[in-house]
Structures are given as structure tokens and as C-alpha cells.
């Protein structure tokens, strides 16, 4: 490999380390380090990171049972990933950034050198990831070294396998038999579903038993052989010699895959460039608050007019179009997750009032949904100039920005409430109604706070590479601030409700109304603060 590229890799690594160090000395970076250090200290103190501590203790699996499950499921999971790569791939998965294309593709480097350069960059990333995984997986593998080796080689395999399979498929794509891709996939999928349904229905069979039988049959072993090697890496507890044998086998497989990638690259380089451009466009859009799944169409039927509604209309109209064209799949995923809440709590027997369930719901609505579904100011940092020049009152702009985001999140909340009403015995009609009524001001409060923080401290929406301490620190601080505000607001509303109940004892209606009005007033106040933050937002300073 060209020495210049190795030098570039070393310089980039040094630059990345320097950036992380600079982030660590910032307030947010220091906060995240303190938080991570605290979590680590807790894990060490509780013995969860000890080599003899059972992995996934909460799931109640002992080491042997877990080993059996890894032996059965991991090869299937890796095979499934390969099949999905063939079905869904749109291009080779060795992605070069636009900067790399502009500087390196025109430089005096062979394609082989560039692939090796990229592979070493991936391997460095995989090494860091494996180092993070190793302490948690050592209980399964017996030592940190074996856990690191297993995780590192498997991560490399995942990357190389998808690249090689993707490239191989694109090379074969022009073949007439390639048209059979979808019918054959559908047939295999149907057979798998029928087999699973049969195993599910038969009283003496289980899906796990069926998969285990397939995995341990001679046909299953032959089909899954390359994948079994990587499962065995996590099961090699007999000693270093056992680990060494499987590690050498894994290295050989990875070596063959790397060789295949270099060989196949020449046939797919044009497609690769196209894919790189496509991914870069998507990445740019994500940085602007768009979704990875946003429409990639060039033309679309225009909606002829926008509603006015005193200035609120066009802003809300624009955000609702963004939601439909950019985030429809994200909303669908969240609705599906919310709909699954009832069956899941019923299956695991965890009541909705349980601390763990409440923390998960809070985390879902205050962190996961706001981070993934962005139809408000947070996706419009680069368009603040436009909003500032519009002849529309700031409060209308703020309301227009919030309405779609709040209503979409509210729809997710209503779906969850309905699911709990149908499947969770402890949730009756009255409780579901109360939850539905209180959820709306709560969503308004969450997004008013989220947007206010964003306008006061505007920043990027996506992390810049692995271990972006500043981004992680900010996300953590934001979540803590939001949680504190939500808890205080709910406590105040409940307090007012309890006080009203003590004063007007006979009925619940008036105290509930008092609590709702209180929560709504706090949400309204938060929206007023958001309006002030918007008015104070200075575009030039935010960009600098």
C-alpha cells in the first residue's frame, strides 16, 4: 500500500484524537466524561464488569444457555444480514467521502491502495468499537482478550461481507437469472414463515428448537459454515488454543473477502461513485434535519396553494409537507412501536405504573422520538434567515413550527394509550382518557423546551463520527434538562390537582381540570420562552 495513504491515515487519526481531546476539555465534553465515568464506576462497583459476572443477568440466562443461543442464532443472523445486503443494496458499501473523492481519486493512487486505505480506516474504527464491547462480552468469552478478538474479527467480517456480497451481486446483476432475485427471496421467506408457524403451532415444538435442528443438521452446518466460525469465536472458552484456531479461520475468511473486494472493485467503480454521491446527499440532508429515508424523487406533484391562517398556516404547511415527504417512515416505525407497547407489557407482565416502564416511556418520548423525528426549528438552522425576513409575528412562526411536531408525537402517544387500553388490564377507559388529555400539553412542553434549548445553543443534529463527545454530552445534558423540567411541571400540576381535590373533595373532575390547566399553562409559558429565544436568535452569531 502507498506510504502516503498510510501517513494520511495516521494524520487523520491524530487529528481525530486531538479533536476529541479538545471536546473533552469543553464543558459538555467534561460532563459526558463525568457521566460515563460514573456509569463505569457503578458497573465495576456492582460487579457487572467482572469476568465471572453473568452476561445479560436481567434476561435470566446462564452462560450455557446463552452459549447455545449464540451458537444457534448468530449464524442465522449473519446469514440474514447477507441476504438483506443482496436484496437491499444499492451500491458497494466501501464509502468514500466527497473530500476523499476530490483529493484521493485524482491522486497517484491505485484503486487497490484506496480500498486498503479505506479498509484500514474501517479496521481502526472496528478496533475502537471492539474495545468498547469487550468488557461487557468477557463474561461470555472468558477474558477481555478473547472478547476483543471475537468482537473485532466479527465487526470486520460484517463490513467486508456486506461489501463483497454487494459487489458480487452487482457484477451478476446484468445476468438474466438475476431477475429471479425477488421471486426466490419471496419463496424462501414463505418457507421460513410456514416452518416457523408449524413449529409455533405444534405443542412439542418451538421456533428455537426448529432453528437449532436446522443449524445442527449437516445441510445447515454446510450452509452456515462461514458464519459458524464467528459464532464459535464467542464460544471458545476452552483456552487460547481454541480461540487461536477459530481466530485463524476468521482471519482467513476476512482475508478472502478483502481479496474479493479488491478484485470486484474494478467492475463496480462507476456504481460505487454513484452510490457515494447518493449517500453524501442523504448525509447532507440529515445534517439539515432531514431523514435518512427521505424521498429521493426529483419531481413530485406540487400542492397548488398554502393556507394562510394569519401567518401560522404556511409554516405549519411547510412542516407537514416535510413530515410526509421526509419522515413518513419514521412516523410509521414510531406508531408501530407505540402499538406494540400494550402487547409487550402484557406479555412480560410489567405494569405500566412500574418504574422501569415509566422510565422507558419517558426516554422514548423525551429522547428517542425528538432525536429521530424533526419537523420544527431544529431542522431549520440554515433557514433561519428566511424565517427572520418573513412578515409574520414571531409567536405565529413558533406556533407554526411546533404544531406538526407536537401533533405527530401526540398521535404516537395516543396510539400507545390505545394499545395499553386494549392489552393492559390495569389501564381502563377513564385512565386512558386522562392520559390522552394530559399527553397533549405534555408534548407541547417537551418540544417547546427542546426548541428553546436549540435556539439558545444552536448546533449540529448529527454526531461527527465515532465518539463525538461534544454531541453526546449535549444530548445527555439536554435530556437531563428536559427531564427535570417535565418532572417539575408534572409535579406542580399534580400538586395543584391534589390541592383542588383536598379542597373540593367529592369529585375528581374539577381537580383533574385544575391539573390540566396548570400543565397547559406551563406548556404555554414554555412556548412564550421559545418565542423570546426565536426573537433573540442572531443568525450571524449562530453561524459563526
Amino acid at each position: 500500500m502507498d506510504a502516503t495513504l498510510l501517513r494520511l491515515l495516521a494524520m487523520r487519526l491524530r487529528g481525530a484524537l486531538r479533536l476529541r481531546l479538545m471536546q473533552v476539555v469543553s464543558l459538555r465534553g467534561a460532563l459526558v466524561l463525568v457521566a460515563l465515568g460514573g456509569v463505569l464506576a457503578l458497573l465495576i462497583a456492582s460487579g457487572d464488569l467482572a469476568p465471572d459476572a453473568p452476561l445479560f443477568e436481567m434476561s435470566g440466562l446462564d452462560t450455557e444457555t446463552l452459549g447455545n443461543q449464540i451458537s444457534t442464532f448468530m449464524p442465522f443472523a449473519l446469514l440474514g444480514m447477507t441476504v438483506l445486503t443482496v436484496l437491499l443494496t444499492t451500491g458497494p458499501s466501501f464509502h468514500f467521502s466527497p473530500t476523499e473523492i476530490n483529493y484521493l481519486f485524482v491522486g497517484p493512487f491505485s484503486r487497490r491502495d484506496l480500498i486498503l486505505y479505506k479498509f484500514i480506516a474501517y479496521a481502526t474504527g472496528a478496533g475502537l468499537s471492539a474495545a468498547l464491547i469487550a468488557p461487557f462480552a468477557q463474561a461470555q468469552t472468558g477474558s477481555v482478550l478473547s472478547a476483543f478478538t471475537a468482537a473485532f474479527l466479527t465487526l470486520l467480517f460484517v463490513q467486508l461481507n456486506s461489501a463483497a456480497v454487494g459487489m458480487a451481486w452487482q457484477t451478476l446483476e446484468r445476468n438474466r437469472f438475476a431477475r429471479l432475485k425477488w421471486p426466490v427471496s419471496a419463496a424462501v421467506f414463505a418457507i421460513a414463515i410456514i416452518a416457523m408457524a408449524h413449529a409455533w403451532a405444534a405443542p412439542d415444538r418451538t421456533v428455537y428448537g426448529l432453528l437449532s435442528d436446522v443449524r445442527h443438521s449437516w445441510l445447515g452446518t454446510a450452509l452456515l459454515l462461514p458464519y459458524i466460525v464467528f459464532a464459535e469465536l464467542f464460544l471458545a472458552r476452552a483456552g487460547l488454543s481454541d480461540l487461536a484456531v477459530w481466530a485463524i479461520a476468521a482471519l482467513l475468511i476476512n482475508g478472502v473477502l478483502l481479496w474479493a473486494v479488491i478484485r470486484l472493485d474494478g467492475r463496480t467503480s462507476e456504481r460505487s461513485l454513484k452510490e457515494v454521491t447518493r449517500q453524501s446527499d442523504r448525509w447532507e440532508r440529515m445534517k439539515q434535519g432531514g431523514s435518512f429515508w427521505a424521498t429521493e424523487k426529483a419531481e413530485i406533484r406540487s400542492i397548488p396553494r398554502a393556507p394562510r391562517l394569519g401567518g401560522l398556516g404556511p409554516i405549519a404547511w411547510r412542516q407537514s409537507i416535510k413530515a410526509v415527504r421526509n419522515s413518513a417512515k419514521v412516523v410509521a416505525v414510531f406508531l408501530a412501536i407505540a402499538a406494540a407497547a400494550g402487547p409487550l407489557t402484557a406479555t412480560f407482565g410489567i405494569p405500566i405504573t412500574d418504574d422501569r416502564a415509566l422510565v422507558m416511556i419517558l426516554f422514548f418520548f423525551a429522547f428517542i422520538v425528538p432525536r429521530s423525528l424533526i419537523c420544527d426549528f431544529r431542522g431549520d438552522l440554515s433557514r433561519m434567515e428566511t424565517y427572520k425576513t418573513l412578515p409574520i409575528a414571531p409567536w405565529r412562526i413558533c406556533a407554526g413550527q411546533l404544531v406538526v411536531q407536537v401533533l405527530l408525537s401526540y398521535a404516537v402517544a395516543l396510539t400507545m394509550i390505545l394499545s395499553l387500553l386494549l392489552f393492559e388490564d390495569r389501564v381502563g377507559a377513564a385512565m386512558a382518557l386522562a392520559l390522552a388529555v394530559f399527553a397533549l400539553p405534555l408534548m407541547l412542553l417537551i418540544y417547546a423546551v427542546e426548541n428553546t434549548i436549540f435556539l439558545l445553543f444552536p448546533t449540529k443534529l448529527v454526531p461527527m463520527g465515532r465518539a463525538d463527545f461534544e454531541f453526546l454530552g449535549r444530548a445527555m445534558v439536554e435530556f437531563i434538562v428536559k427531564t427535570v423540567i417535565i418532572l417539575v411541571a408534572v409535579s406542580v400540576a399534580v400538586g395543584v390537582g391534589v390541592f383542588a381535590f383536598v379542597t373540593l373533595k367529592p369529585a375528581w373532575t374539577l381537580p383533574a381540570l385544575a391539573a390540566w390547566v396548570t400543565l397547559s399553562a406551563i406548556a404555554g409559558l414554555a412556548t412564550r420562552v421559545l418565542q423570546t429565544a426565536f426573537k433573540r436568535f442572531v443568525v450571524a452569531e449562530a453561524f459563526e
Partner: protein
Amino acid sequence: MLTVTNFSKNYSGFSAVRDLSFTVGPGQILGLVGPNGAGKTTTLRALCGIVPPTAGQISIAGHDIVRTPIAAKRNLGYIPDDPRLFDTLTVWEHLAFTAAAYKVAAFEERAETLLGSFELSHKRDTLVHNLSRGMRQKVAIACAFLHDPKAILFDEPLTGLDPQGIRGIQQAIRDRAQDGAAIIISSHLLSLFETLCTHLMGLNLGQCRRFGTMDDVLAEFGQSDSNSALEAAYFTITQDHMTGDA
């Protein structure tokens, strides 16, 4: 039509613009010239209400941009140097959005005319993230013209445009001025000022160094060729910048 009185803008201790006063009347085209960091973009952003002035008054069509921002902005069109359009909207939907925001009632006919004049008719249903930079610039200008503003501010209007596009935009600017709009253009292209502007203002280190009609500026530098005179004016300002003695 557009009046600026003793305008200053400070950013955390740094003075971006100091004590600027000028007026642009209907039909006049003022060119803002100066090196990077002279305060041109800050001035334009303050004029259209994006950043509040630290001191002074800015009036658009008789409306103060701080006291009555809605009325002032209704009379204003602003085309930034890098138009950031809404990536999920089509070209037509940008015009529909602008019409609703600026309360333009029957906008369809005017919108079609604008699309035609900027050669965008065949792109009306294209999502804007698929457009080239020059096309996006044209969409931003079409949106800024839709509500027939009395004052229009251009920040580097010709960036990314092809020769036909440049000619089209220049003609559109002339037409708007002839219809009575007050226009300000900020650019580094001296030839653009020579072609379009009636007035010129030289900015350096946030202060006005030269302000007058084009004829006055050209006469001051005594060149027979207007391009050379503009260059001479520009480099005099830049020299001030280098020595900091202005």
C-alpha cells in the same frame, strides 16, 4: 424608500458596522462594495430584520424595521448569497409558501410569469434539492419578487449563474428599479456595479468610506474607463484596510 440613520452593529465587543447613514430612493440601485469582513452582509441582514441593530434607525417604505417589523418586511425582498431553500418543497410550492406568508391573493398568474422569465417553467414540480445552485438562486429571486416589494436586497446575486442567467437577472433588476423599487446589491463583481448601479457605497472595517452616485465616484478617480475607476476606488478602500488608517 429605504433609509438608514446612524446604524451600528456590535457582536460581543466587536464592531461590525459603525454609524452608517444613507438613503436609497425609488428606482435607485445602490452597490455595496468592500473587502471581506467590511460589514456588507451585516448591513444587509440588519436592513431586512435578520439581526437587530445595536444603534440607529432603519426604515423600509416608511416602516421602522425594529418598531413595526411586519409592515417593513412586507415591503422587502431579500436574496441571500447562498439561498437555503426548503428541501422537501417543489419550486411551485416555494412560490405558494411565499404567497401565503406575504398574503399575495391571486398569485398564480404572477408566479407563472416569474417562472417563465427565469426559465424555470419546466422545473415547477421539481424538488429544490435536485436543482443546481444557479437554479436555486433563480427560485429565491422569483420568491423575492412575487409580492412586488418596494425594496430589494441582493447579496452576491450572480453566484452560480450561467451567462444567460446573469443577463436575465441583470435585466430583472433593471426592470424592478424602473418599476420604482429601491435596490441594494452587495457583490465583489465590480463589473456588475458598472452595469447596473446608480449609486455606490464603499465600506471598510464597518465604516462608510465613499458614498455617492456612480458618476461622482468615477469622476473622483478620474479614469476614462469606468471599470478602471471602480478598481481604483476599490483598491483605495482595500489599502485603507491594509494600513487601517482610514
